[in-house]
């Protein structure tokens, strides 16, 4: 599972991507648990960050598998 960080989250985590290999698919809650364990600095951002799975915003009941590309999307400001 490849996790991508963007904008200020790169500063928080110190990297733009991380690889994880959870033994079974994760729901949002478990994914966040795994992320916060590795990157505690993400804690204050959890409320505003949306999760994307394979280039689409993930539903609340999405399952994240090892084949997925997961992105943490902080509030956007394009245009």
């Amino acid at each position: 599972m490849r996790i991508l960080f963007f904008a200020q989250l790169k500063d928080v985590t110190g990297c733009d991507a991380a690889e994880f290999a959870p033994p079974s698919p994760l729901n949002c809650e478990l994914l966040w648990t795994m992320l916060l364990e590795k990157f505690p600095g993400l804690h204050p951002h959890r409320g505003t960050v949306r999760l994307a799975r394979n280039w689409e915003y993930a539903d609340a009941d999405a399952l994240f598998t090892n084949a997925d590309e997961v992105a943490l999307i902080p509030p956007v400001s394009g245009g």
Partner: protein
Amino acid sequence: MEIEVQLTGSPIAENISAPRRAEHGAWLEFRGAVRDEENGEKISGLEYEAYPEMARREIRRILESLAVEHPCLAARVIHRVGIIPVGEAAIYVGIASRHRAEAIALLGEFMNQLKQGVPIWKRRALPVGARLSQPQHVGIIGRAAAGTAALRSLDEALTEIRAHCPPLPPERAPLAEAFDRALRETVCAPEDMPPCDRSTRDGYAILENGGAETFHIVDTLHAADWKPRQLKPGEAVRVATGASLPCGNLRVVMQENVERTGDQIRIVRRETATNINFRGEDLRAGEPLLHTGTKLDAGALALLAATGNVNPLVSPRLRVLHFTTGDEIVPPDQTPKPGQIRDSTSSLVHGLLQHIPCDLTQAHLPENFEHAKRLVSAFSPHPSAFDLLLVSGGASVGEKDFTRPLLQWLGFEIVFSQINIRPGRPLIFGVNDARVAFGLPGNPLSHFVCFHLFVAAALAKLVGQAPATFLRGRLAAKLDGAPNPRETLWPARFNVGQASCRSQTKSSAQAEQRIGDRRDAWPTLTPLKWASSGDVTCLTQTNALIRVPANHGPIETGEEVDFLPTNV
């Protein structure tokens, strides 16, 4: 609605021509420019960052959904990323419609939604006086654009390819057309499996704790029967294998273990097994049957059929366009004149793509660029006519090597054009919206190596499958190669053993542990002789590529190596 989306690291052109169609009554353009002030501070520019694959998809999705209410005919969106000086455009939107009202409405609503959900960020404001040089890392686009000329290592190239290949939008397909496609949804059991307690034997169902020796047969159940009833002590039901049992707390006595006289049976031998496949024993309702990314083989299709999933959500068939180039190439059924060779790459690509559900179109391009462009236009009449473009030959920088200009003419952004590996150094990789293109070296062996390493990685991402990974094996013979400054992919023959996966999942880590205990169980690899990158003869033997690090070698018999199985 026709939609074109571009993310670019370059300034947006001042004049962008509108698509001219007879039915276009209105062409509305909007440019959003960087102002000289951000949060009350004077600035000289803004740095933008994007998640390009997702940004392109979101823009497209928003336009498609808005077009339902505001039926427009065409839309073109260009968003610039990286550092943008004050006064220059960050975004361009052009909308064509029959009448002005729907274009104006769609544009306003589009910009609102873009600012809420498209993953593009103002990364930082540059104070007045700051140098406006492009940063090292401005997101994937910026990074790629900055380093197009640089040689890529194998790992760098793979990372970039994967980042630029979004899975194609999935579609629903009937089971008969879904073979070998990647499942794009997790399919869960619609009910307990099996849905009720079933007999696994031909025999007699009795109460589990029925202590009696003789039983009266009250009913007979075949596999298709469904006749619930509560059995009493001393009662038995004749059941066939697969029959649904009439109530709970039963066991089935095999017919071989009873003596039957008319409607009576007597148990002559007691069994410990219940001979029942209990409800939900295989799977509980709601548990995942097949995960997203599963390649649908015969067994998976049977499971989908058994659970009523007759139109699974799967990857579409890939549309592949393959061109060979070079005037020295003659068709395989012709005798080459001096200086000419027969085309083998068409057959190679055709064979390599057999494992991917795709529609392949192949043609040979003349070396005259203008003639080539005309031919390409005939095969690709509109930009979305294919998902993957492969061009064999013409990938290096010789005068006649026109793959790069051809791809650029087709609107592709070149991400990189050289790989620091052998064989196969010239490799061009380009992206254009959701489509990708490779310019492959003309030599068959280089072609073979680049296909398995790079094209296969792109294919896996496009169709939503897990990528192939390097495995670990042992050399059965010495790999007799002098150290080379480039990483080498050495053709080899491997004998199937228990390959250990390099990924770090729990189960594979356990497998690795087990295999580590039994080194003789490792796959063994015999390096093959290859003289040059044009070597076709060794391809008939090759079923693996050994990864030899740069400046490494020779490698002795028995040593561990990483390898990629091929032709799978």
